[in-house]
């Protein structure tokens, strides 16, 4: 299989050896069953060792994997009747964000998400999933529409960040992001956010103010990319691996910091290895979140969201500091 990562090589090689032995057995009379069984047991152990114990940098690589499933792929598996809506009604249609209406187990919802391309051509069209202000404004328009028709909102987060470009600044990238944070806080319908790939800074957060934030096991959420952090902190972007650890950007890290609600398990080796199965894992959490939120009245829903963000942060009042000069 293409796109194997360096750290999973031992698994890949062992798997290859097993299939070679099986092939050999098919063509000869030699019985290698016990040998194969032994290797398969070893493979399982090795998989658990490697995939069950992934380092932050390995997760970063999986989160960025070119084959990693995108928003539209999950939409097609999780929902029916998806109807994509375009444009912010003011400037244009930013294809780095997709959104529309659909049904989730028969229930009407609005879905929005960042959208990367699967190849170079599509990536250029979608600006590598890095939105301009009109993308955020399209998302906001669709969220307001959802509120009007009392539809819950599901948002998929998957971006390296908001696009750092001249036109983006001219059209108010800051304001577009800020406006979404502000308006999402007040949406009178359930909002569920799922980080499916990279959650890059303010550009990710702009679709990320909800009642629940979940992360796929190998997704990341960070204030800056590991490369950017390394360049900024140690003036050396080659220290990205170290930065990935220091900056605490993995799903378990964010769970530990009290930011996210659930870690959604991934299939062994990453979501791209089995899209169907991965969608089932997400489906399960979404059903759970939806059923918890649907019973809340509007006020409780808004208070829950308020308290969720109010809690985030670490500070103290050490009295001995008073008067310290």
């Amino acid at each position, binding site marked *: 299989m293409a796109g194997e990562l360096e750290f999973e090589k031992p698994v890949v090689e062992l798997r290859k050896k097993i299939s070679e032995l099986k092939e050999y057995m098919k063509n000869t009379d030699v019985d290698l069953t016990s040998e194969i069984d032994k290797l398969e047991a070893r493979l399982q152990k090795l998989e658990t060792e490697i995939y069950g114990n992934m380092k932050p940098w390995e997760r970063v690589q999986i989160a960025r994997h070119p084959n990693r499933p995108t928003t539209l792929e999950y939409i097609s598996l999780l929902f029916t009747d998806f109807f994509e809506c375009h444009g912010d009604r003011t400037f244009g249609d930013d294809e780095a964000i997709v959104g529309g209406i659909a049904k989730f187990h028969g229930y009407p919802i609005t879905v929005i998400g960042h959208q990367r391309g699967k190849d170079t051509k599509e990536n250029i069209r979608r600006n590598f999933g890095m939105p301009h202000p009109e993308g955020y404004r399209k998302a906001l328009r669709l969220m307001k529409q959802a509120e009007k028709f009392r539809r819950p909102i599901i948002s998929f987060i998957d971006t390296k960040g908001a696009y750092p470009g001249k036109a983006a600044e001219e059209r108010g990238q800051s304001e577009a992001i800020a406006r979404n944070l502000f308006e999402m*806080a007040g949406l009178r319908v359930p909002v569920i956010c799922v980080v499916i790939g990279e959650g890059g800074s303010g550009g990710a957060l702009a679709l990320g103010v909800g009642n629940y934030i979940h992360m796929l096991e190998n997704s990341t959420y*960070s204030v800056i990319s590991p490369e950017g952090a390394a360049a*900024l902190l140690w003036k050396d972007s080659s220290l990205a691996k170290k930065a990935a650890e220091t900056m605490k950007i993995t799903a378990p890290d964010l769970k530990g*910091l009290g930011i996210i609600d659930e870690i959604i398990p991934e299939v062994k080796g990453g979501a791209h290895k089995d899209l169907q199965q991965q969608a089932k894992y997400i489906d399960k959490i979404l059903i759970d979140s939806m059923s918890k939120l649907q019973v809340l009245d509007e006020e409780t829903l808004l208070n829950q969201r308020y308290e969720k963000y109010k809690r985030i942060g670490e*500070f103290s009042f050490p009295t001995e500091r008073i008067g310290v000069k």
Partner: protein
Amino acid sequence: MLKELFTKTKTKPKKYATIPSKAAKQDVPEGIMTKCPNCKKILYTKELNKNYKVCTQCEYHFQMNSAERINSFLDFESFRELDREMVSGNPLDFPGYEEKLEQDRKKTGLNEAVVTGIGTVKGYEAAIAIMDAHFRMGSMGSVVGEKITRAIEKADELSIPFIIFTASGGARMQEGVLSLMQMAKTSVALKRFSDHGGLIISVMTHPTTGGVSASFASLGDYNFAEPGALIGFAGRRIIEQTIREELPEDFQTAEFLLKQGQLDAVISRVDMKEKIAAILDIHQPGGTFEWQEN
């Protein structure tokens, strides 16, 4: 009258005591003369300070620290600080972070990059948050987010306006994603306050970039900026690297944002108190309607 207050605070014991910071000294050396970095005119430091640290020749706005802002913007001795003792933890166990904080505490006499409290502007009461770029470049960590959120909640509780002066390089890297989440936290608080009818005034001062620009700084009912202030989401160098073209000189300045429709007005610091007070006046809860002869 304002100018009087400004000088008076120098001799009278201040309710809000601060140690003159080293960074502030760099901005305006404690010497008799100060050179304007923009027009190169040599100015009397005393006169410059009387003029709110605005160059009398070219109107270049020297950076202010939070104490100077409080003294120049709020009514004399009206400021009551909130959460002064709140300090940051080291949530990521980031190497050297505590030492850096300690250094800046010593350097600035502040515990964090924002000072919050209640004060009056020409008699109008408001909750105020003043960011100070001399502390960790005004970057936003947990304490900055929490203090601003509490100031917004205080404004909500007392039904008074919320005014923020921003000055920030963006996120506090050493607090990682917790820093990012402060954008959401403050915005969520502003939304609730706004839904209760609260008035939000944002004044962006040099520099206001990154996560601060992309959250509360841009969420005022009125968004203002001081002349020449750098305001933007992405850094100039990153944009130039991305689009491989040189950006115009005035890119991401207050004047540029005004032209792009991102600001209500650019206000000189000399007029700041007067103009904001006028806005506060218009938003006072009205009595019965009475026609006034102009």
